[in-house]
């Protein structure tokens, strides 16, 4: 079943056509990678799906229901969680309270939300830091906090915007394992923007390549890395995956 479907989605900023006529689908339970060079329109596309921007043209459907034009909080309530590429922690709140804010969406009381938050923090290896202010975390920890907060809203689809950037290879592998586990056990669908090809290749069953706002290729990782157009604009001729 198709969980997320984009049909001919376009978005311009004045003269700049950031996203042009983009169509692709994400099946329920899939992990799909979104790659492309800087400025290709990946984050704009995320903002369109998450409701932070509304498309100039085209349709976005989630679980069969149109979601373009909805506000971000409505998109989240519909079941889409997102992380921000430039992390946005609630700096003055504790790590735990950051996650509690997310968990309150689907819990009855603050006490329930705290329980949910503690479970997620342990999963993301942030349990020991739960009482520290989020502003004191290192960048890799803040990236994990972004993921924890988004997971706390119990999404069906998780949008990950470069959460592996700046992580050490071992940390990156741990993150990959976590998403695989969530995908397998909870059936979580994931759409991820990522430059760390090691992570994309390990996670994604399908990859969509964006360049100048357009989809130039999509398919399995093996197909995409051999695509001449992708090699030319993004991976480079001598890419070794």
């Amino acid at each position: 079943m198709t969980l997320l479907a984009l049909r001919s989605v376009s978005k311009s900023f004045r003269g700049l056509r950031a996203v042009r006529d983009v169509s692709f689908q994400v099946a329920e339970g899939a992990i799909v990678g979104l790659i492309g060079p800087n400025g290709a329109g990946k984050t704009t596309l995320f903002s369109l799906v998450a409701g932070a921007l509304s498309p100039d043209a085209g349709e976005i459907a989630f679980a069969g229901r149109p979601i373009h034009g909805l506000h971000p909080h409505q998109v989240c309530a519909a079941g889409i969680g997102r992380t921000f590429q430039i992390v946005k922690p609630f700096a003055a709140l504790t790590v735990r309270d950051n996650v509690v804010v997310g968990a309150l969406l689907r819990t009855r009381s603050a006490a329930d939300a705290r329980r949910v938050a503690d479970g997620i923090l342990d999963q993301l290896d942030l349990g020991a830091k739960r009482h520290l202010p989020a502003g004191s975390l290192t960048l890799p920890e803040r990236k994990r906090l972004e993921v924890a907060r988004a997971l706390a809203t119990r999404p069906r689809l998780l949008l990950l915007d470069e959460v592996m950037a700046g992580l050490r290879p071992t940390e990156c592998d741990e993150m990959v394992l976590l998403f695989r586990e969530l995908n397998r056990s909870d059936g979580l669908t994931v759409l991820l923007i990522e430059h760390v090809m090691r992570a994309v290749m390990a996670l994604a069953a399908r990859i969509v390549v964006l360049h100048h706002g357009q989809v130039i290729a999509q398919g399995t990782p093996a197909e995409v890395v051999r695509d001449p157009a992708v090699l030319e604009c993004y991976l480079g001729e001598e890419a070794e995956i």
Partner: protein
Amino acid sequence: MNRAGAALAVLAALLMALPALAGPYALSVATLILYFAYTGQAWNVMMGFAGQLSLGHALYVGVGGYAAGALFYHYGIGPWAGLWLAMLLCVALGAAIGFLAFRFGISGVYFALLTIASAEFTRIGFDHLGWLGGPGGMFLKVAQRDAWDLVNFRGPPVMYYYAILLFCVFAFALCFVLSKSKAGYYWQAIREDEDAARALGIDTFRWKMLAVMLSSAMTSVSGVFFAFYYNNLFPEQIFNISRSIEIILGPVIGGVGTLFGPVLGAALLTLLSEGITESLGAIGLDIPGVKQLFYGAVLLAIVMFLPGGLWPALSSRLRRAK
């Protein structure tokens, strides 16, 4: 925890016993402190919790005071009924300002400007309302009474002291409960980062409206108290921007967004400024504007050395001492 509880119990006992221990002057200073503590707490709901800076809270004090005052002055209706009208008007005003700002994306400094403007044009408007006394002011009938007339809220100073003490306790308890609730979490999230809050499913428009409406409702009570305690209302004074600044000085100096900050700030500021005025008066000096000068100096010192306010610094020191 035990020590904090004990300290709180001592403070409560002291506040209860104060009228028996203090003279009329000390009682009036204590009443003033509690008045600012309460109003600061109300302002703190908007700024400290939800991060929406209001520099025009005198608007709600004034409208609240005039609403209940006019009902009493013209129709002899007591403040317990007038309070509801005051709240209703202030909530409507707060909702109107909030709607304008949040619907059209006016935030930060621009939002603060909108609050100042609202208080200012209300002040000018009230100057032209003859029914409410215009610039000449409205005076509630004063009668020196020793008996407590609770129905009409007329009585000796000690009655007003206990009334504002009760309001303070209520506001403090309300803020305590809110800070642990969904509303408290959501407001703080909005204060810290509104985009991230939205992405976590928070309808930020709705929650910001709620903060403004609750804060204005709480502040209207200050106005009703002011009207019946001082018995006179002048647009030029009650809506003045210096009154709005006075309201926020307590929480800013005590600690924005904390529960004890508004109380601590109000106590410190009122005691020191009264002390300065008194001691200057004792040596025969009457310098106009010395209070404002003093406020400026304290504010400068706090912003430079303790930008989070006194209470966060104090509480972390107390915790370390344990």
